[in-house]
């Protein structure tokens, strides 16, 4: 038996292919949306993985350091490092801000890392160019997504930093590239004010009788000094010794340090379940809307194509063609249209949309396979209206005027 659907498609292939391409662009957008969601989840996981931490110690009753602000004393790490099962600890600060380089600025997550060596918690685990930070001040390692190059001079607050190393896929959960600088610089950057503001603050402090007491000249100096230094970090990252149960150590820190501690599983839940929850819901709604629009478009196209063949369908029915054959013809055309659309959409999403989209778009093969399955399902669903119309065609329409 010849393929009626195949012959019909080949007969008007131009119209069919162009229609499929139009549909493909819509499917491409849908696939890209799914890819954006996957990219967000991957960004969150990358952030967690790249920190090289097993535990995150943060301010009590906060979801820090990524989902909520967290502030703990900078010497907290000492007590934690001495606990059994802890291999390494490191302070870390995170600050999302605009980083300038010449005339342009880039939104980046500035990460303060403690002096040490590669493998220290918080440090970028690998570089694609240059070297790690070796000096205590004014050096930076930037992710290549920031667009910075080796040797560039970055301005963070009032200070300039030289880019000495480049990383890849070191991003925040929001997809902003990370820029690593020495911890002390990062602590300072968090609260560093301009000169006018500093002068103003000092004057106000000096005028306060509470700080400038007669006979206690050192008090004012101490207060002024404390105002210009930052003795806090956002979190302590902890690496555990092999064979240690994370929850046991976490419980110990919670108990003795009165701090909140998250294990990798818990942090993963915060990053993917809470931090990007709203974005996920938004993208899911977009996917639903796009799927409905795609269904409506495919249904409309197939219905229109079928209406254009009413006379032929009446003739086919009159000469004894089974309903099954006619339904199969429409169904096959619908699936063929969806397949063309999916191929065009996949190519569009992979080659054109993902590379230029300002966020990381992760197109997983399994998602593509599921996407194809959904497209086929949508096509089957969409063809039902046309099939119903075709099956209602009276073969008698072929007889008489």
């Amino acid at each position, binding site marked *: 038996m010849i393929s009626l659907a195949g012959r019909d498609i080949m007969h008007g292939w131009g119209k069919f292919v162009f229609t499929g391409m139009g549909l493909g662009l819509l499917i491409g957008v849908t696939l890209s949306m799914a890819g954006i969601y996957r990219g967000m989840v991957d960004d969150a996981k990358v952030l967690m993985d790249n920190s090289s931490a097993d535990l995150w110690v943060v301010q009590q009753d906060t979801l820090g350091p990524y989902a909520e602000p967290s502030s703990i004393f900078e010497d907290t790490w000492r007590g934690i490092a001495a606990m059994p099962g802890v291999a390494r600890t490191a302070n870390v600060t995170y600050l999302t801000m605009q980083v300038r380089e010449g005339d342009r600025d880039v939104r980046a997550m500035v990460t303060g890392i403690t002096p040490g060596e590669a493998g220290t918690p918080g440090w970028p685990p690998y570089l694609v160019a240059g070297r790690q930070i070796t000096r205590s001040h004014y050096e930076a390692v930037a992710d290549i997504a920031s667009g910075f190059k080796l040797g560039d001079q970055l301005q963070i607050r009032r200070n300039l930093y030289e880019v000495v190393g480049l990383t890849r896929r070191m991003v925040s959960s929001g997809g902003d590239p990370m820029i690593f600088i020495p911890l002390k610089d990062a602590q300072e950057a968090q609260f560093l004010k301009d000169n006018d503001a500093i002068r103003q603050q000092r004057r106000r402090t000096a005028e306060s009788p509470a700080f400038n007491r007669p006979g206690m000249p050192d008090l004012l100096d101490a207060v002024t000094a404390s105002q210009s230094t930052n003795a806090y970090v956002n979190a302590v990252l902890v690496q555990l010794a092999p064979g240690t149960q994370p929850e046991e150590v976490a419980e110990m820190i919670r108990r003795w340090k009165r701090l909140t501690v998250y294990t990798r599983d818990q942090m993963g839940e915060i990053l993917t379940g809470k931090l990007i929850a709203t974005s996920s819901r938004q993208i899911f709604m977009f996917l639903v809307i796009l799927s409905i629009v795609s269904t409506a478009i495919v249904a409309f196209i197939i219905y229109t194509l079928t209406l254009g063949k009413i006379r032929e369908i009446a003739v086919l029915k009159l*000469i*004894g063609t089974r309903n099954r054959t006619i339904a199969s013809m429409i169904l096959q055309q619908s699936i063929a249209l969806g397949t063309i659309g999916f191929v065009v959409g996949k190519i569009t999403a992979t080659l054109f949309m993902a590379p230029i989209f300002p966020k990381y778009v992760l197109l997983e093969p399994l998602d593509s396979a599921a996407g194809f399955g959904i497209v086929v399902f949508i096509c089957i669903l969409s063809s039902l209206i046309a099939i119903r119309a075709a099956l209602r065609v009276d073969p*008698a329409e072929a007889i008489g005027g």
Partner: protein
Amino acid sequence: MIKKGIRIEGLRKRYGKGDTAVDALKNVNMEVAPGEVVGLIGPSGSGKTTLLKCLGAVIEPTAGRMILGDETIYDDKWLVRDLRALRRDKIGFIFQAPYLIPFLDVTDNVALLPMLAGQRNGESRQRAMELLTALDVQHRAQAMPSQLSGGEQQRVAIARGLVNRPPVILADEPTAPLDTERALAVIRILNDMAKRYETAIIVVTHDEKIIPTFKRIYHIRDGVTYEEAGEGREFG
């Protein structure tokens, strides 16, 4: 192949019920022998199309009897379960316009029916080619319908009607869009094919040009058929 033509006895068709009922066919009696081509003529609203739909097993008559070949297919009710298969295997249709399937080439337009009946593609195409050769359009076998002239399209439509060797062919104004010369050519072909394949052909027509060519004519008026002898003139 069944070789006994078609016989219709006391066929009636009523649309609607009660006060709004309309008797489209009141008493139709016809008999067409294998190899015979008869005309069925009548004014608009006389019941021609309704009769054709009843004969084509597209609508169900209200009462009467239809015998196709040696099989009674209707006796106050359908006696055949699968009317679709009946249409496919035992009734050929030729329409006012050729109504060829635009996305199939000439051969496949003709071969489609035997394929639908479950015959192999090769056999179906071979049978189609035989008919196309008999109708002198074999040189357009690979052409698409849009590439054919009106006369060629109608010959392909005739081949499609004949391809399953049905005992009866219903031709619904097959010469309406054609000029006299081509209309007479179509009637000549129908007569040749009827004789060659021993098929009974009923031609519904208004066409004054071809009415004189029938040896027998059924007039239908107000749902009742009247038989009369035709002129049986030579074609062209």
